[in-house]
């Protein structure tokens, strides 16, 4: 117990790295995924194929392999990258592919008549996206997306394997010194659980909030 109290500041540092990695991944993947997702639905054919291929490939590769591919594979190709950013890039690729599918799902759930009604009153393509499609797609996109943030948090634990001292790695290191494996693992599990479970609850809350619009 003493060892755990003693280790707390160290664990807090790891915890903040985990949050920082997750936040970067969430922001980058959201930006990339939104653009690519819209391209997948509305882009010209060749672009659609490229995005489809990207998403299917990324989703077919285990996250851990993706992390190794970026970490070990980039430097020989002349792109130097440290372990922290290798983790962020790999997890961003993984999350972006998810976001692309959320976007596609959200947009394709909107009846075709909505686009047509927008056309009929003379809205341009961009205006139709802004005023008709996106406001409706948001409520379908948000709940799975918020819920999927947990995947970034959980996936971030894998970058401990590159030596990044995130929450997972700081737990491993404290165990290495104190040999108190179980209490520390459970403490770690509890912290991850606390972050992710509150995200799940938020997702459910958002879903209910948007439930008032039915079609």
């Amino acid at each position, binding site marked *: 117990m003493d060892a755990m109290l003693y280790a707390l500041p160290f664990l807090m540092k790891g915890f903040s790295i985990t949050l920082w990695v997750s936040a970067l991944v969430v922001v980058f993947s959201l930006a990339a995924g939104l653009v690519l997702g819209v391209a997948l639905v509305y882009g010209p054919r060749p672009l659609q194929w490229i995005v489809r291929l990207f998403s299917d490939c990324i989703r*077919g590769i285990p996250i851990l392999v993706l992390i190794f591919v970026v970490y070990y594979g980039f430097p020989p190709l002349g792109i130097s990258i440290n372990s922290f950013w290798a983790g962020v890039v790999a997890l961003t690729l993984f999350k972006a592919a998810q976001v692309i599918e959320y976007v596609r799902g959200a947009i394709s759930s909107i009846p075709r008549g909505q686009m047509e009604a927008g056309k009929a009153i003379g809205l341009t393509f961009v205006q139709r996206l802004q005023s008709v499609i996106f406001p409706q797609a948001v409520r379908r996109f948000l709940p799975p997306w918020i819920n999927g943030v947990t995947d970034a948090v959980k996936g971030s634990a894998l970058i401990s394997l590159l030596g990044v001292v995130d929450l997972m790695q700081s737990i491993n290191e404290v165990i290495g010194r104190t040999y108190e494996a179980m209490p520390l693992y459970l403490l770690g599990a509890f912290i991850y659980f606390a972050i992710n479970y509150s995200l799940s609850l938020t997702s459910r809350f958002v879903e209910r909030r948007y439930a008032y619009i039915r079609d």
Partner: protein
Amino acid sequence: MNYHLNFNLIWRHFDKLWQGLVLSLELAVLSILIGAIIGLVLAIWYVSAGKLVRAIISAYVEFIRNVPLILLVYIVFYGIPTVVDFAYSATVSFVGTLSLYAGAYLVEVFRSGLEAVPRGQIDAGKAIGLTPLQRLLHVRLPTMARITLPALSNTFISLFKDTSVASVISVPELTYGAQWINFNTFRIVEVYIVTTIMYLITGYSILFGLRGLERRFRAER
């Protein structure tokens, strides 16, 4: 870019990857089987049980779903043996972990599948005098199986990818094989190209195979 691709060393050690892939598939198959049993038992228990049991099952599901798989792997392989006097190999430990993991996801799948069985079918079962067990076996489970089949396929593919985490406790599956070649030959780019392609081909073959089976299963009804 002055890196020259050379796959010779990869082919020389290809058995590491091939055997790794076979083990990955074995791990995934075992885990989905055990996980499906866990999931099914808990789902049936859940829909018929009181509040306390439901809370316990939910706690299990939420715990597993919200903790990183790698940490679960550590807990089972490194953590549990420190508190109970019980020894198991890394492979057994990983199958146990992934089964519990699969179970948690499948409880939800089966539970919603059971609840999606139309009321009228159950009433019809009652009307012809089936006992609760007969209704479960002949009415609810067959219907549920059909509803949950796509989700089962998806879970299996996810599990196949998740087997890569077994490499962290040195289970010699595909990712471990890739790392072994990486550290022993330094043909880093080549080994990850080959490994990635192996994951993709296997994963999508399974996906198309299972989708084909689903279609046949649907058509027969």
